[in-house]
């Protein structure tokens, strides 16, 4: 680059700006809709306005401030997503000052941060495809700028040669770099623990969290993306028995259920597992939270996770990437039969002054049922509540906003809702009746993908149910939502198979295949980390190779990859015609014994000369020379040429 920054030709400028736009696109898609649209539109406007001359500095500063305000308004707080939003805003405004070759290059460089930032928010296939596109676009723009720098005049065939060949060259460069990139990807030592943490999002994604507000899950329950994929080894539970236990919620403040605040790192609750064991591997999609799900009930906390007081699992670090957990679960025969008094108290607590009718009904039910030590009355109360639900209640997702006494409204007025309402109301009613009850959130059911034989748990499978504590049996799972009479299940998302639209299920196969691919991608690429890297080498007999060994291995493979790259690039120098190539090689062999062909010597004359000097091999050479001349200068069948090439290669002086 020279000291004076030369201006970009208009065509190159268009190319650079288009490449930057492609880079920006995946990031815009991850931003809140209004912000994404706004930045996209302002990028176009700024580009149009600044096409001839740069915008005044004051205006640019003003636009920058506007962008910051827009980000702050849509994503309050400092987080990963708001930082990405800011980056998108700055990139959208950058075309206002992009004129010289150097500007173009720095814009391309900074634009590359956009797909990178996208991956901090989303690692899905769409983002990846767009990011790859962005890489190709940036490289081709760089190439054009390099052409400009070395003189526009040296592209005489520019018009005759459309962009395809240029594109081919870019793809070729990427392909050449691919072995090196893959070697580094698989073998470059990974960090077992991050050096610094990933900043959280300012605006959380819909997902399971440590709270539940009845009516708050509509986003989550209409989200058809996978939450986890599960592979069973051995026994597989029935679909109706698949309760994926997530956060357990104890505290109710009248509107929202919360986890216990001091709920971390508890010892596993005492439980006696039943006779069935489920052994499975669970791949969690990133949730940005620490809550894990496991089949009811997990037997032990896998490394990197711990139990909560509600016997749900919590990861030690937030799940920002696809994570893999190896778990064992068993339905319990008794689950914490000795409930500590503090927990018992917690499981009976109700907020003062909320839902008076429900509380009154619970107390009335208790008076009618009486008390007994072995919990027969408690069980009867549970049965009574379920019977009431079966009799009078309906399931629907079409629910008005919650009022102050939401449970009263639900139980006595509306009598319809979905799992959040049922579990919340059931818990309040049972607590009022003196039965320790808690809310369990998680997922219910799953979809078995016939391709790959694994189960997909979708976000729309999110579910909330209850556990009541009964003497001797401990916590018992009760799913009040499941008690709704099937004929009163209205507007629901149930019985949807992914990929089905109404009665049309032609897309199911596509969903199955694409989810299977996605799982492979997760498995192969997204879930790869330091532990997997170590495990990958085990089958190769390189177990326990250690960091230094890994570096050595990486250096070796990278060296090979570079060698391959150099060989492939240098191949351009070799003769393209296989016949000539074979003939030249033959000539080299003779040159080594001092019988090189002179520059002026025709093939036949040379062969005759050598034949005179080296009688033994020379006779063959003379024949070969004649055949070579015939193949070069007369019309012959390709098969003949191939045979000749073989013979030429086989011939030794």
């Amino acid at each position, binding site marked *: 680059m020279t000291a004076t920054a030369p201006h970009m030709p208009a065509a190159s400028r268009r190319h650079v700006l288009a490449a930057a736009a492609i880079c920006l696109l995946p990031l815009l898609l991850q931003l809140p809709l209004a912000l994404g649209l706004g930045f996209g539109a302002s990028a176009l406007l700024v580009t149009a306005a600044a096409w001839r001359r740069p915008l005044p500095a004051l205006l640019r500063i003003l636009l920058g401030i506007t962008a910051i305000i827009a980000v702050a308004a849509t994503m309050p707080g400092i987080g990963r997503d708001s930082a990405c939003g800011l980056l998108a805003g700055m990139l959208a405004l950058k075309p206002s000052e992009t004129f010289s070759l150097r500007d173009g290059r720095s814009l391309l460089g900074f634009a590359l941060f956009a797909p990178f930032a996208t991956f901090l928010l989303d690692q899905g296939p769409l983002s990846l495809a767009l990011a790859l596109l962005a890489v190709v676009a940036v490289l081709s723009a*760089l190439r054009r700028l390099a052409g400009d720098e070395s003189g526009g005049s040296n592209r005489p065939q520019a018009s005759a040669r459309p962009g395809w060949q240029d594109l081919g*060259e870019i793809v070729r460069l990427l392909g050449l770099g691919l072995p090196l990139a893959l070697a580094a990807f698989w073998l470059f030592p*990974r960090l077992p623990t*991050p050096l610094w943490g990933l900043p959280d999002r300012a605006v959380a994604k819909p997902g399971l969290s440590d709270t539940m507000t009845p009516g708050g899950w509509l986003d989550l329950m209409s989200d058809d993306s996978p939450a986890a994929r599960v592979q069973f080894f051995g026994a597989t539970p029935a679909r109706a028995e698949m309760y994926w236990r997530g956060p357990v919620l104890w505290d109710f403040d009248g509107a929202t259920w919360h986890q216990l605040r001091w709920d971390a790192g508890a010892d596993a609750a005492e439980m006696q597992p039943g006779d069935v064991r489920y052994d499975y591997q669970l791949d969690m999609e990133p949730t940005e939270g620490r809550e894990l799900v496991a089949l009811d009930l997990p037997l032990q906390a896998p490394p990197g996770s711990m139990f909560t007081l509600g016997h749900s699992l919590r990861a030690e670090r937030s799940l920002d990437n696809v994570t893999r957990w190896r778990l064992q679960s068993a339905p319990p025969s008794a689950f914490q039969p000795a409930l500590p008094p503090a927990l018992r108290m917690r499981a009976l607590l109700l907020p003062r002054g909320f839902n008076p009718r429900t509380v009154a009904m619970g107390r009335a039910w208790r008076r009618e049922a009486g008390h007994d030590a072995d919990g027969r009355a408690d069980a009867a109360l549970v049965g009574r509540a379920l019977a009431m639900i079966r009799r009078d209640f309906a399931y629907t997702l079409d629910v008005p906003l919650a009022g102050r006494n939401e449970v009263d409204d639900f139980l006595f007025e509306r009598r319809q809702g979905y799992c959040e309402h049922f579990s919340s109301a059931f818990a309040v009613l049972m607590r009022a009746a003196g039965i320790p009850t808690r809310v369990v959130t998680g997922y219910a059911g799953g979809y078995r993908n016939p391709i790959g034989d694994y189960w997909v748990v979708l976000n729309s499978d999110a579910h909330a149910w209850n556990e009541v504590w009964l003497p001797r049996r401990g916590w018992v799972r009760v799913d009040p939502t499941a008690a709704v009479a099937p004929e009163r299940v209205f507007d629901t998302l149930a019985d949807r198979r992914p990929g089905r639209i109404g009665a049309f299920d032609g897309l199911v196969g596509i969903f199955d295949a694409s989810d299977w691919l996605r799982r492979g991608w997760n498995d192969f690429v997204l879930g*790869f980390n330091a532990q997997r890297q170590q495990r990958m080498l085990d089958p190769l007999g390189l177990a326990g190779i250690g960091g230094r060994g890994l570096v050595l291995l990486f250096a070796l493979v990278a060296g090979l990859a570079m060698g391959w790259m150099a060989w492939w690039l240098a191949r351009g120098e070799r003769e393209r015609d296989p016949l000539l190539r074979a003939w030249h090689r033959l000539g080299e062999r003779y040159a080594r014994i001092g019988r090189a062909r002179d520059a002026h010597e025709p093939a036949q004359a040379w062969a005759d000369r050598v034949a005179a000097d080296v009688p033994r091999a020379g006779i063959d050479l003379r024949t070969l020379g004649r055949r070579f001349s015939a193949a070069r200068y007369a019309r012959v069948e390709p098969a003949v040429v191939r045979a000749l090439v073989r013979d030429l290669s086989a011939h030794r002086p």
Partner: protein
Amino acid sequence: MRAALRSRMQALTRPRAPESLPVRLDRRRVYVLPTATGLFFALLLGTMGLGALNYNNNPALLLALLLAGAAQASLLFAHLQLSGVRIEAVAAEPVAAGEPLSLRIALGAGDARQRRGLQLRHGDEVVHASFDASGTTAELRLPTSRRGLMPLPRLELRTVQPLGLARAWAYVWPAQATLVYPAAEPHAPPLPAASTGEGRARDARAGDDLHHLRGYRAGDAPRTIAWKASARRDSLLVREYEQHRRDHLQLDWSATEGLAYEQRIRRLARWVDDAEREGRRYALRLPGTAPIALGLGPLHRHQCLRALAMMPAETPA
């Protein structure tokens, strides 16, 4: 400081001495270093890679590695753009000192690789060479400062293809010298008087002195062409005149007595040019060399100017 560094670099890079052409650039004399853009991208990719490793964000890491791989491939690519290039020959027409010399450089390649965006450079002068299958010829303008034989400088052949992230360059140092004529004196007195004969008008070259017609030879002044006769004969004919003694100039070193040494050379160079322009035959006599006989035309001019250019430098008396 900078110049010292540069000369230090020169001493380290090949070729270290002038070489005779043709020269093939082999891989040992092609150098590759990242450009400023390349360093910027390296920094950027490093940041991206570190961030991706830290967050174990595999798609981001893959993205960074893919870019790094392509950049690495472009480094090799840039190297191969130059290696294999043959510098066949260089040639230049002599020019007067102070005027830029336009050096023609013929490039070829031993392979069929596509080469684009090659640049030849010397100092601030850059020229683009567009390669095709048969090679290319580029014209590089070199500054000249003094008369005489100018040894060719070390020329740089370079490229930033394909991505502008790396610059590959190689030096060529042809062991050749080009002739630089002395600069003609800008405001010189008129030509000295003719050596013999006087009083007759100069335009006596019209009709009556016509000696004969002869075929056109390259370098003949257009006005000596006999257009009518040429039209009749279908080939260009030139009038040859009776030699007019009075028109013959003797340009003599001694005629410029009293001027400084270089000044004398420049004056004579000017007179040679003037005589050429006026179409008068002239002879040149210089100390220390054989006198140059009467003559006219580009070849004669070259002979005279060459003799002037090759005059030894002034020796302090």
